[in-house]
């Protein structure tokens, strides 16, 4: 399997919201190419008569509709830096185009 092209790496980086330096794009193209090559080996196995399996177990595991205590707000927000809090709300860059700070 050949290396991934620059465009492909840039597209994947965009979807993952990762910033890559030009040199990193080059290196990443080679690394991802090697990973895909491994999957190509797996894909070579003939699976014509093997049904698709997405889960190891297909047992129903439904939960009863019962409310249990939620996390205390302080715990829920404990991973936030101070500047990302406004009272008990999470502060993020504006979601409205043109209003980004």
């Amino acid at each position: 399997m050949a290396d991934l092209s620059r465009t492909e790496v840039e597209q994947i980086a965009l979807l993952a919201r990762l910033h890559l330096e030009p040199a990193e794009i080059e290196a990443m193209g080679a690394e991802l190419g090697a990973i895909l090559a491994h999957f190509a080996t797996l894909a070579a196995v003939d699976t014509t008569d093997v049904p698709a399996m997405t889960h190891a177990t297909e047992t129903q595991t439904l939960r009863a509709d019962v409310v249990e205590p939620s996390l205390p707000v302080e715990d829920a927000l404990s991973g936030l830096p101070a500047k990302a809090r406004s009272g008990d709300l999470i502060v993020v860059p504006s979601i409205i185009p043109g209003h980004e700070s």
Partner: protein
Amino acid sequence: MSAEQKLSERSVAEMLLDWEPVIGLEVHVQLATSSKAFSPSGTAFGEPPNSLTDPTVLGLPGALPAFNRHALELALRLGVATSSQIRAKSRFARKHYFYPDLPKGYQISQYDEPLCEHGHLDLIVGAELKRVRLQRIHLEEDAGKNLHAGTVSHVDLNRAGVPLVEVVSEPELTSAEEAAEFMRALHRLVRWLDISEADMEKGQLRCDANVSIRMRGEDRLGTRTELKNINSFRFVQHAVEHEIARQLRIIDAGGRIERETRLWDETLGQSAPLRSKEEANDYRYFPDPDLPPVMVDGGMMGGILKTLPELPAVRFARYQKELGLSPDDARLLVSERGLADYFDACVAAHPSQRGARNLANWMLTELLGALNAEGKSITESPMPAPTLSALVVLVENGTISGKIGKEIFEESFRTGEPPLAIVERRGVQQISDEAVLAPVVDKVIAANAKQAKDYQSGKDGLFGFFVGQVMKETQGRANPVVANDLLRKKLGR
């Protein structure tokens, strides 16, 4: 003003002779569960921000989702009520995108194996039902809520993880009115079946619309735009109307419709593009490895089929066909299950089916009027259905006049005393006996000799005066038909 905006409303109407709008709706309905779709946090509205989260909602490492059985039952109820094909084994998939209200970086949804497919929803259009096909109904979780705050946004995750169904229609609605009607029909149905409170002010029913236009007679669909953020019946109508006109103007000016997502702003009465094309969505769906398939067995389906009530569209047709109600009355009665059930109880208590129209009149004018005045809903009515039915019978069989009937209604509504008891206590039975009314008529004519003479010499308008006098003498109890006959006979014209 750009050239595309110069097309007048009249020209829009003219263009619609050649161009056909095609609309498909995607409606999100919150399922009325107590806990979230995949974890046990509560779903109450209006709680303090970020107070309804848990490790699963926040997407913390190690948290494992488990699906809510009640959410599945509610979704199945909707599937059955829309005659959908139910998948015995459906699957959850991860839909990946980055947005501040989505802590996990993906939304749990369903993709190529949704719970329900190929159902239909019946819309009430005038006196008729219009059947709209549904592509699918699938399960998913809601995201959190973004609040715009100047140069930043605020996020509240209380709503994240709340169970939803997304109902997707086929693109076969052909006007803004029909789009609004689709939303009304779905709103009515999910409330009817206790699937959702569908309170639009709380965001429990939300709609996106896909709109395109094509030359009439063309089979292929035109390029569509997706309108987001249309959360009331009125908004959906305005937004779709506006979008159809916008697309017609572009075509008229020789332009092309861009495939894009637009956000409707009701205050401005216009839409604006939401995302640029470069960020065309690539959701990278794949089966969620944390969640086993959703299995639906015969026992579960049996339970749902057994408890499914008569549906609003069926009742709308029955009220017209079997009970002779007008389309307007029938539509009003099925607008809420409580109203239709109350009406059915009235009909059941009435000795004859022919009373249905009278019962509907009394219920929709007198009863609803009185309830509205007190801010009460039909289920809080102090007057039980058999009592209203008994009152209507008293009017129908001539025991009391319609006018007295209204007074009896008011008193019975207020005090709870049975109508017949009030009638007997107040002695207000209608007088239909000529032998009793004749002397009253004689007395009225004698006391108003001048008016009698005027009437006899051609002043027709005075007849009403005499009827009024007879009513006054009898405290409104005279049977108006009998009184009129006697007056005509005795006044000699």
